[in-house]
């Protein structure tokens, strides 16, 4: 992490190449903006204003960054072991479902309380912790399935995790239209709402909820786990050279299962945060694309959890500015998706640039 006399050039490379690719993606995005007849420079300025312009709008950016930090870990952790898991969206949905079910059961005693039912007297902290735990367990089990399929049957984890997203969404639709449905939700079928006192609150007098703290803590813990523990070291060895890991007797199967569980539990916690701090109920608003954007965050951060937290804030800003683009420039809501796709492609291309510029090599003479 730290600059020394000899390694500052490679570290500069690690900062310059991602930043350069973001700039290139912005330029390419400008081409699309021009196609729709807008001036790219005005659009960039408006995006910057909304995302990071002042404290009020920056709070919106941080609100969106919170789930992104958690879903990014769902891709970043297994990637260190060489597993490409993109089931973030599904694990988020399942975690959210787990949280809402737990929250309703604890506060009302059943899933479809009568309209006059009063919530219990249990301490809000207990209920919040239980909901978080449920999100973690449900999401973890969901991606744990992907890990088990990979380990026991050799099923490609990328395809299976992506298929699991669709299954999770079908499950959500089924539950909120059937067993969990609140009869009052007509236009958008939803579960019953978690009572207000049991929701995760905001930090101080801001709009930002404590989910952001969860995200930051999770990223720090993930960093320490991967970089500073034997477990993380073993996972990285397996990711670097699977044969070497097997020959040296590392429990690759156990590592796969545990890291998949941890990955899913992060995304599941993101679902809990979305349910218990933002939506208060489970419905199709859970499928807001945080899962897919989390993949991008993990990629841009090159699977480093600390970097993921920072990239999440950056991407949160871009998502936050999506509304402005729609309102002020009459651009489609998919603009943000297109921009993310461009960033993704450019960042992948930039991978091939590492080591190509001689200037970044550390000098041999010292």
């Amino acid at each position, binding site marked *: 992490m730290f600059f020394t006399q000899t390694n500052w050039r490679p570290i500069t490379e690690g900062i310059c190449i991602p930043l350069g690719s973001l700039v290139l993606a912005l330029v390419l995005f400008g081409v699309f903006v021009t196609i729709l007849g807008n001036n790219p420079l005005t659009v960039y300025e408006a995006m910057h204003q909304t995302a990071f312009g002042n404290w009020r709008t920056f709070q919106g950016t941080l609100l969106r960054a919170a789930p992104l930090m958690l879903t990014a870990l769902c891709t970043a952790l297994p990637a260190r072991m060489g597993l490409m898991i993109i089931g973030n969206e599904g694990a988020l949905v399942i975690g959210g479902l787990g949280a809402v079910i737990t929250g309703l059961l604890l506060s009302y005693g059943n899933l479809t309380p009568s309209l006059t039912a009063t919530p219990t007297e249990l301490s809000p902290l207990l209920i919040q912790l239980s909901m978080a735990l449920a999100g973690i367990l449900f999401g973890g089990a969901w991606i744990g399935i992907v890990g088990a399929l990979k380990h026991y049957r050799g*099923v490609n984890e990328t395809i299976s995790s992506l*298929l699991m997203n669709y299954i999770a969404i079908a499950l959500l639709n089924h539950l909120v239209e059937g067993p969990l449905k609140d009869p009052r939700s007509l236009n958008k079928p939803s579960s019953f709402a978690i009572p207000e006192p049991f929701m995760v609150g905001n930090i101080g007098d801001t709009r930002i909820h404590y989910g952001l703290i969860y995200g930051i803590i999770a990223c720090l813990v993930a960093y320490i786990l991967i970089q500073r523990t034997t477990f993380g070291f073993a996972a990285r060895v397996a990711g670097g050279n699977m044969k070497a890991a097997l020959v040296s007797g590392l429990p690759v199967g156990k590592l796969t299962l545990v890291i998949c569980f941890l990955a899913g539990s992060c995304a599941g916690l993101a679902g809990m945060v979305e349910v218990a701090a933002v939506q208060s109920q489970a419905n199709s608003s859970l499928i807001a694309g945080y899962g897919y954007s989390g993949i991008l965050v993990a990629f841009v951060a090159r699977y480093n959890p600390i970097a993921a937290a920072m990239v999440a804030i950056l991407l949160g800003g871009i998502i936050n500015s999506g509304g402005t683009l729609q309102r002020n420039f009459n651009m489609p809501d998919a603009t943000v998706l297109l921009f993310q*796709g461009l960033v993704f492609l450019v960042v992948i291309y930039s991978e091939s640039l590492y080591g190509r510029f001689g200037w970044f090599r550390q000098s041999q003479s010292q």
Partner: protein
Amino acid sequence: MASEALGSVGVFVAILGGTLRGSVPFLFVSLGECLTEKSGKINLGLEGTLLTGAMSAYAVSFLLQGKLGSGLAPWIGVMASGLAGLCLGFIHAWLSQQRRVNDIAVGIAMIIFGSGVAFFLGKSFIQPKAPQLPTLDLGFWSTVPAVQSALKISPLFLFGMALAPVMHWFFRSTRWGLIVRAVGDSPDAALAMGISIPKVRMICIMVGSLFAGIGGSGLSLYYPGIWSENISSGQGLMAVALVIFARWNPIQCLWASLFFGGAQALGPALQAVGIDQGRYLFNAIPYLLTLVIMVLTCSPRKTLTGAPGALGEKS
């Protein structure tokens, strides 16, 4: 409803019709993926290609109907979808052959980019109605409307059905087919034969992507015949898994596509006869089926029979 009167026969007819309609995107995407994977590369991004193809076919058909009439315009739309596929295929082929670039990662990026392009440029085409491709009424002999509508077959479907054996013959009996297989199975041997591996892979990925784009035109110009943002819902991705199930054999891709089309038609068919319980769960059947098939056909120890030797290796 006529199908209600027919009872269980009605369900069968509805599933048959749904199979013939719904298998078009599966067929084209799986044949495209088959060609791509035979050359040793994986293209996960065909989901995005399918969406972009669907959007461009619909947009072109809508924009040209005034100039060319509603008979010719959809066919130009099909060509446009193929062209869109070629372009996305070029991006994938070029990126995935860069140093230290993983083709799975490129695929994920292409899913997001392809759907982004499709939704971004296709926003203004969600409302208007574009002229559709003509259908062949193979149910003319029947007086039952349900049978007639079930047997309205798209020329695209027949084209795809013909394409499968042609591809099979191409791989087995032509010089070019041999070159593709050599590149995919043993790049070293191909190199020794004096073949340019990047060039062959570039062509295979681009043509495979062209097929997927045409499959997209089947979605927007035939069935369901509209352009909306959730028109594909993972069919492009399922088709990628389907190629594994079909053991990289184009003929088996055809059967597998029909099978998946049928699985997808199950939910709507049951709904049509009034079984509405758990319809969302029925909609999840194709995904579950794909998972189950992958669990059954994959093995943790050995590579699959029929898999191209160099598949997924770093270039």
